[in-house]
């Protein structure tokens, strides 16, 4: 398994690095938050990102994409994570496009994927519910068969970028009990259709998410994504891809907040010396550095395993997301502590990273969730 980037991937990394640095900034992130922007990101910037091919990374070339893999996705996500760039990579590409690539019919792919790759169509996947916590198989939303259509009833929560999506993908139970892995079906839903209402949720990190209410919303058979009743498996696979990509984004974010902290340790003086000369802080900085290095290995391992279709890919994703969750929180918490009082102020950027660390931890399962699932899978 390749744990170092090849030349093409290094080139992609430089492009993404420069783009994130020159086209976005923490000042922009702050302005988006303070301005109460309805989108929470820039559609123009998203089209530019799509023009670079990023919206089409996992989309095959036949559907207008770049036909690249999870490692390339990770490379871009890491660089975007460094700048906390909020454009909808995770929702539209990692979740939405991947769901259609892995589960869609030829017709669905032709209709949707090219417009996703060009940056014109935004997708959102609604799988979480009020009681689902991190479990994508715990589905209370129901889809009833009524003549030749399906009627959806229930409520999805924390639908990433659901407030702006042009197409929604929602999971609903078509058979079985509430926690069964089988009996779940994914549906493509038009957010403007009768019976569908979308309400934006306000999250601590300023990213966009929505509650999607389905009140007798009606869809036809062509809106079924993947095999009916087997959506739980598809969802699991898609969430694994997205979790690996999110871990890469978190790697970039934790690296950035750690670099800010290091800079502060070298310049902030107390008792007449830089505070970074104190061994108590040096050792803690070295521990954070070590955790970031371990996270990098785990992210590359998981991304490569997904691309290779390795048997233990799901294990490696669990390891990467668990490590990224713990390491990002450590880096962000240490950043606030080492910055002292200024780190507690809203004026300083370090708080943006702390908030993102918590939000990212809780997206696609925290460390404890992934450890428990790993143990379940391995029968102990």
């Amino acid at each position: 398994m390749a744990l170092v980037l090849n030349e093409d991937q290094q080139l992609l990394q430089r492009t993404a690095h420069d783009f994130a640095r020159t086209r976005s900034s923490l000042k922009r992130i702050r302005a988006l938050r303070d301005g109460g922007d309805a989108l929470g990101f820039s559609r123009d910037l998203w089209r530019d990102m799509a023009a670079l091919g990023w919206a089409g990374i996992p989309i095959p070339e036949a559907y207008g994409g770049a036909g690249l893999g999870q490692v390339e996705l990770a490379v871009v996500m890491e660089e975007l994570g460094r700048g906390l760039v909020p454009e909808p990579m995770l929702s539209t590409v990692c979740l939405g496009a991947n769901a259609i690539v892995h589960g869609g019919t030829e017709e669905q792919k032709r209709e949707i994927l090219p417009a996703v790759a060009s940056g014109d169509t935004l997708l959102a996947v609604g799988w979480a519910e009020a009681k689902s916590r991190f479990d994508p198989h715990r589905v209370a939303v129901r889809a009833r068969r009524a003549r030749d259509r399906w009627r959806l009833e229930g409520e999805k929560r924390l639908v990433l970028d659901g407030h702006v999506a042009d197409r929604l993908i929602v999971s609903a139970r078509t058979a079985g009990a509430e926690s069964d892995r089988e009996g779940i079906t994914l549906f493509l839903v038009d957010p403007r259709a009768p019976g569908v209402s979308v309400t934006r949720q306000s999250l601590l990190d300023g990213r966009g998410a929505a509650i999607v209410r389905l009140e007798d919303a009606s869809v036809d058979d062509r809106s079924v994504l993947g095999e009916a009743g087997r959506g739980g498996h598809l969802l699991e696979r898609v969430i694994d891809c997205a979790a690996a990509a999110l871990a890469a984004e978190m790697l970039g974010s934790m690296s950035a907040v750690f670099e800010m902290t290091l800079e502060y340790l070298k310049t902030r003086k107390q008792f007449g010396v830089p505070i970074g000369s104190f061994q108590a802080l040096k050792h803690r900085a070295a521990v954070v550095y070590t955790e970031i290095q371990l996270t990098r290995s785990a992210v590359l391992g998981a991304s490569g395993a997904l691309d290779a279709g390795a048997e233990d890919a799901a294990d490696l994703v669990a390891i990467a997301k668990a490590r990224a969750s713990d390491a990002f929180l450590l880096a962000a918490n240490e950043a606030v502590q080492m910055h002292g009082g200024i780190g507690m102020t809203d004026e300083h950027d370090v708080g943006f990273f702390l908030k993102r660390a918590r939000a990212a931890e809780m997206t696609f399962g925290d460390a404890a969730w992934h450890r428990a699932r790993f143990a379940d899978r391995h029968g102990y």
Partner: protein
Amino acid sequence: MTDLQTFRAEAREWLLANAPASMFEPVTSDMELCWGGAKTQYPDGVRHWLAVMAERGWTAPSWPREYGGGGLGKEEAKVLAQEMRALRLRPPLIGFGLTMIGPLLLQEGSEEQKRTHLPRIVRGEVWWCQGYSEPGAGSDLASLQTRAVPDGDSFVVDGQKVWTSFADRADWMFLLARTAPDAPKHAGISFLLLDMSSPGVRVKPIRLISGYSPFCETFLNDVRVPRANLVGKPNDGWRIAKALLGFERTMIADAFKEDRAKGDPLVDPARDHLGSAGGKIADASIRERITQTKFDERCLDLTIARIRETQKAGQNPGPESSILKFYGTELNKRRNELLMSILGPQALGWEGEGFDPTELRLTREWLRSRANSIEGGTTEIQLNIIAKRVLGLPD
């Protein structure tokens, strides 16, 4: 067939024809292997295996033939190692001679030193030990006080070494001694080779909290060391020592990897000692700690693999490697803590009845593992190194 394929076939055939049957049997610890030396008696099979392999120079396959080595190229040496592994053959010889002082002499030694010492290492005639640490010089190794005073064509060495592994069985020691007492501490140290049978050398074994240990104290009283046994230039010993210390660190990080290859050493004892409920280990907190340990181990393995790949790709190896010793040893300590939690009261045994051999071994290993983060550069020193060299934090 390419030359390498021919070499592989011939090597395999020769190994099968010449290795005694007992050399295919697995070992449970390093101490069942051959360390060489004049003071230790080895079983016939071990002696024979050493003799035939040394005859071909295959105890040190890549060393030059003129010094008794096998003279194999990098690729051939790799093939030989692969074949030995595939046949599950024991190495004919291990120890500091092959891994530390030999390679060092090849790089830094005089022609005379190479001709004197290397063939004897190859033949397993000499067990080497390392005389670095002193009672007053642990983490601050450069403050060592053992003195070597020039006197005619010798140095007269006085001082005390500690944590000398196997000093009681070693024939020779490579050591650091102060030759310029008034120079800055790093600039006044020389690297010497000492015959342990010299008058004035006294060795006392150290017993650890875990019981028997290979460690010793070594007392040096007016010991005469010929000037010919100075490696490199006078007062250049620190540079040489650093190279070797780095090597020791990677060896320690590596050592923990092998242990883990066998089965599932955490889940099985947890089931035995804590029971299962519905297939799950009955104690949820132990189950969580086991998984955490597995995750940490996988991350460490991936990091080791990543650093190797980076080096192979010819990219700058990068400072990442400095984290391995720190993280690997701390992880091993946590793992031993976890095993004690799993054993519960069965962790209480020291020897005798009421405890099975595995339980007794694990308890001793837990105690011994406390030293992982001390030997070869403490965790605190590793963190200092990361902070200074990698992160560039100020002094």
